[in-house]
């Protein structure tokens, strides 16, 4: 089981701030991303790779990042603090 968090506009658009997902062996961030595209078919434009960043266990990660059971993933738009 992994935890998937959403922030910013993405959280609002998906109307979800947290999702628990079962993961299989050898899953990558891109596989989770593909699952999200299926689950949120109305919001795929907000899930385009150029429009989102992903963090694994609170560090920015690439789509190729290998995930493990218990990981905390987060998807969010480019940051706008400061």
């Amino acid at each position, binding site marked *: 089981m992994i935890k998937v968090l959403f922030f*910013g506009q993405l959280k609002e658009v998906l109307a979800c701030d947290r999702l628990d997902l079962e993961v299989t062996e050898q899953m990558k961030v891109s596989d989770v991303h593909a699952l999200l595209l299926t689950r949120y078919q109305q919001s795929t434009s907000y899930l385009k790779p150029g429009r989102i960043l992903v*963090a694994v266990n609170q*560090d920015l990660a690439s789509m190729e990042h290998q995930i493990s059971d218990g990981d905390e993933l987060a998807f969010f738009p480019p940051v706008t603090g400061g």
Partner: protein
Amino acid sequence: MISVQTHDFDIASEYNALKSSSASDGAIVTFTGLVRDINQGNQVTGLTLEHYPGMTEKSLANIVQQAKLRWPLGKVHVIHRVGRLLLLDQIVFVGVTSKHREAAFEACQFIMDYLKNNAPFWKKETTLDGEKWVEFNEKDREAASRWKKRKYGV
């Protein structure tokens, strides 16, 4: 010292805390960011700042660490507010001390540039036309990337 907080901060207290460092630090540079009335062409009356608890603090600590490796710094304070803010409210404070002014200026600017690009905060502005998520500003990416080319001492 890094703090992500909903409550306001007091410049005088921050400044005094920075000043009371070692007598070797002759330079103190501070940056304060306020809620502006116009942003990306919109008339702004306030904003709501969201963050990613845990990752935000980690990201800020990492940026401060990078600055300390790059410049000889004394104290570094970073405060960023989250939640609901109004026009002219203080959003962010970065204060840096160093023996010399150049290091203090550069490190303070570096921290702000990296914060703008990497620290997980998201702003939703309240404008006269309703609420609106702020778009990432490409200029901020350029501001951060130039530090890759420059070295201490310019």
